[in-house]
């Protein structure tokens, strides 16, 4: 029997933390307070989802972890090292894919390695491997504009995997993708998490998606964000996706999150 575990906001897991956010605040120029003294730990090798009302600061937090945005105060540690900017152990998957339109799928996937000066032959063979992993074999020579949204995001994901980052940050990666593609994508994600042993930090607006793919879900309150609740859905694995979606543990978790987030609808 599986059970969904709910922790109080102060819950901290000390063992095997990959990313640690410590009292991070962010005030944007102009005075918008996006984050206020938020503290969070992201366990190694797991997929943690950030879920919360629109505008609560999820993207802001993700970008601070990525090193793309400086925190106003507080600090982020990745594998014990303080984040000062972007680093090779973190890779970002963008909501709008952020592919180079003038480059082929192969070059796009290898782009992170190209920037690091990896020789052509080596980076292309690594890229080919990950293109296969995300199910795009045969599309190496295609250009992004010839691909569907779902395929483009697979390119974005393959690019993040190709640099062998330990932490993969994903900001609503499936929001520009249709529902069928999205479900297929979610299943592939589960497969990847199993194989890749990476730490995934994931932002989504879909409660179902969060429950389906996450090891942990962090519910955030309205801006300035606080951690409202931490949920570990612990879905049964090894059964079909349809069985999961009908499983009481799945339905209970979805319902619980919905009840918690409902208050933020106006």
């Amino acid at each position: 029997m599986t059970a969904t575990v709910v922790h109080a906001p102060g819950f901290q897991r000390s063992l095997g933390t990959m990313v640690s956010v410590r009292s991070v605040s962010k005030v944007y120029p102009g005075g918008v307070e996006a984050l206020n003294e938020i503290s969070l730990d992201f366990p190694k090798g797991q997929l943690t989802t950030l879920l919360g009302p629109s505008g609560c600061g999820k993207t802001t937090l993700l970008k601070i972890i990525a090193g793309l945005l400086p925190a106003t105060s507080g600090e982020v540690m990745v594998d014990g090292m303080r984040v000062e900017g972007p680093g090779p152990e973190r890779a970002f998957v963008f909501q709008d894919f952020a592919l180079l339109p003038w480059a082929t799928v192969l070059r796009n996937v290898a782009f992170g390695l190209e920037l690091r000066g990896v020789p052509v032959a080596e980076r292309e063979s690594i890229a080919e491997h990950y293109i296969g992993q995300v199910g795009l074999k045969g599309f190496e020579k295609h250009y992004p504009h010839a691909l569907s949204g779902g395929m483009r995001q697979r390119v974005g994901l393959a690019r993040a995997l190709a640099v062998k980052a330990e932490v993969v940050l994903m900001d609503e990666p499936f929001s520009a993708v249709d529902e069928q593609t999205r479900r297929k994508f979610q299943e592939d994600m589960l497969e990847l998490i199993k194989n890749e042993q990476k730490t995934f930090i994931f932002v989504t607006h879909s409660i179902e998606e969060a429950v389906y793919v996450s090891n942990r879900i962090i519910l955030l309150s309205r801006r300035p964000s606080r951690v409202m609740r931490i949920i570990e859905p612990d879905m049964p694995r090894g059964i079909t996706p349809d069985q999961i979606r009908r499983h009481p543990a799945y339905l209970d978790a979805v319902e619980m999150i919905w009840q918690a987030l409902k208050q933020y609808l106006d």
Partner: protein
Amino acid sequence: MEVFGRKIPMSASLIVWAVLWEIVGQLDLVSLIPPLSNVVMRLAEIVPTETFIDALALTARSFAAGTGIAILAGVPIGVLMGRSEIADRLLLPWVNVFVSAPLTALVPIIMALFGFGETTIILTVVLFALWIIILDARAGTRSISNSLVEMAQSYGASYWQAFSKVYVWAALPEILAGIRLGMVRAIKGVIIGQLIVSVVGFGYLFEIYQSNFLMEHLWALLLVLFALAFLIDGVFGYMEKRVEYYAASR
């Protein structure tokens, strides 16, 4: 353009003007306008002459050097202005002034600084071509999506890598448009330079044709220049079309 339901290429309008020119010329109304057919004949006559070839070579050299400098300086400056708020604040007022200033009036200043040689002519070309190249590169860079910039950053691109592997390519449609407009202005620049600075190249030909009232020669030379401008415009217009497909998806 459509006439009587048929598609007619834009260049067809040139034929109308050519016919009109011939008629006005044949009527002999204004001595300034010889018939087009005479001009074309004169063109065939002067183009193979050594004087013309030398003048063309000299003009082409100043033109190529000037536009080369304008592109090599203008594109990075424009991209920098598009990326950096500070650089933009500092430079934009100047660029805006120069892009519409009566630049001919500034040529004597360059002359005072650099003398009467080819350097001054080349700098005149730069002066004419540079500003629009900067402005367009800036506009292209500003239209790059934020996530593409963040992508380059997050994968650890150095300033040079971000510039050479992302920004220039992402802004390429506008950069090409800027270069096209800059080169057309550069033709103006090279002729004005040659006329004002030291009467050489095409400037020299203009001078002698004019002072000897050789109207057919003068028009023939102008036709050559128009054709060159047309050619540059066409080549770059074609290249812009080829990169258009990604202008929307940056």
